[in-house]
């Protein structure tokens, strides 16, 4: 007969073993991405694979920069994602404050509409305006993924601000505009930061819109990496290095706002 304490301990060990097993695939894919990026060519494609002991080289990273204008692509991604985020905040915050249920609903329907059905009209429109391969076209179209997040998540944040605060500001001589940007927005700053980062990540990750609307000059990172697949074949070091470098900023930003991510992904339907 096993006594109670031993039994509890065994349960605890079994529980933690289960946790490790369940989380292993998640960790492994990221680990494998980073380890491939650090391995020399021979070891990256060694079979059986080298899991823990391998020689470390930064040649993969050096190759990425040597063979591609990777800094330009990074800059493009930054400009587009930053532009999209700023515009989404500028346009989305006032909208969230004056909860326009109709518009919010329209934007939820926009979430259901397949992204690709916007792409055909955009492509024709921007081609006619000679705007394919411009930052403006990319920023505007990325708003489709950035704006809904800002509006839907911020509605929840603005609802928590008592209306008296704004009225007080207006008694003190603020205009509606001033009361909104100087009083209401600073009060929901955590939400603004979180939704800003979320829309930044969504724009940064976007592949579908950029693959058609970005050109030689405005190519963003996901497209650049996709193009590398053809060239590099099984030269895996640079591929994994590029993948790691795209993912790293996202991981850092994700860690900053992790509390808000489930709320953001479900449009406020689930409070994470």
């Amino acid at each position: 007969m096993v006594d109670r304490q031993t039994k509890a301990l065994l349960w605890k060990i079994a529980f933690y073993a289960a946790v490790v097993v369940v989380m292993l695939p998640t960790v492994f894919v990221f680990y494998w991405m980073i380890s491939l990026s650090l391995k020399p060519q021979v070891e990256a494609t060694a079979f059986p694979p080298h899991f823990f002991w391998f020689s470390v080289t930064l040649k993969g990273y050096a190759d990425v920069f040597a063979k591609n204008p990777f800094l330009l692509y990074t800059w493009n991604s930054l400009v587009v994602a930053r532009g999209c985020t700023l515009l989404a905040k500028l346009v989305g915050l006032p909208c969230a404050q004056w909860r326009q249920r109709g518009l919010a609903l329209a934007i939820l329907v926009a979430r259901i509409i397949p992204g690709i059905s916007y792409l055909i009209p955009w492509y024709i429109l921007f081609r006619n305006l000679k705007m394919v391969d411009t930052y403006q076209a990319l920023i505007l179209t990325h708003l489709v993924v950035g704006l809904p997040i800002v509006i839907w998540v911020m509605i929840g944040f603005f609802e928590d601000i008592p209306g008296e605060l704004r009225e007080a500001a207006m008694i003190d001589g603020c205009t509606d505009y001033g009361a909104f940007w100087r009083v209401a927005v600073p009060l929901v700053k955590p939400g603004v930061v979180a939704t800003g980062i979320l829309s930044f990540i969504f724009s940064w990750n976007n592949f579908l819109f950029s693959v058609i609307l970005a050109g030689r000059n405005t190519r963003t990172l996901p497209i650049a990496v996709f193009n590398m697949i053809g060239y590099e074949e099984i030269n895996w070091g640079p591929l994994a290095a590029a993948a790691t470098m795209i993912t790293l900023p996202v991981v850092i930003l994700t860690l900053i706002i992790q509390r808000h991510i489930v709320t953001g992904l479900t449009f406020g339907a689930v409070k994470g």
Partner: protein
Amino acid sequence: MANPVEQADVRRYAPGPEMAGGLGAWASRFTHRNARFIFPAPAFLVVALIIVYPVIYTGWMSLQEWFASSLTAPKFIGLSNYQKILLGDPRFQHAFFLTIWFTVIAVSAETALGLGMALLFNREFWGRGLVRTLSILPMMATPTAIALVFVMMYHPTLGVMNYLVSLVGLPLFKWTYSSASALYALALVDVWEWTPLIMLIALAGLAALPKEPYESARIDGASAFQCFYLITLPLLRPTLVVAILFRAIDALKTFDIIFVMTQGGPSNASETINILLFNQAFSYFNMGYASSMAVALFAIVMGASLILMKVRRVGW
């Protein structure tokens, strides 16, 4: 919204808008009265330009035949494109079947695994925060980068997946490199990315469940399985359906990983509607037909959402 009396008070005592004269004052008075229309106006404008206009245009274009040429104008052909989709295009029917099948296997695996993980993690334990953090990473990481990593992991002779498979003693797979397994290999990537979302939503749902039913069930001598099946599952169902709804909407529209990893191949084995439509539009520039497929895909996603929303209200 403040109540009307309060607002009237503000107007009377406020030194700003109402009292002063002149054009500037008139403007700020006008802004104040119509604030609820003026503030959201830019958003309306943007939404009209980047969402409403394309949607209407797609609907109109779906009735035309046009190969994106500037020399010939679009030709109005009525509902012929839709007729072709419904009756005469085996490739679309194949894509339709693949899209549904991909969604069904991916989302059901995600739901089962996600719910299981949520039940496991639904307690206080050391490292809970870390588990949460790790779970968020797959869904936020750039899909293109993840797809790329899986391309390397799935390599039939040099990839780590086949090594792991051989360790367990299973026969080797060709993953995305064979038409028999490509769709399942892609679904596995989707499962890896999105199971955590269902887990986190279910976890939030579990945390909000009342304690009383469990206490009385225990007094009545219910087993752990009975508790789960008769209490947890029915109470959690609304939350779970919301999670499935979000996942199903996105799974039906999956594009990035399929396009990066297989581009619909090998031999159309993973050509979902999204991929077929993309190629029709941007490889063959068959804009009219592609637009009608976009409308069809929207109808499918909308239909699936409506069914799931109905499931949420009705009993099992």
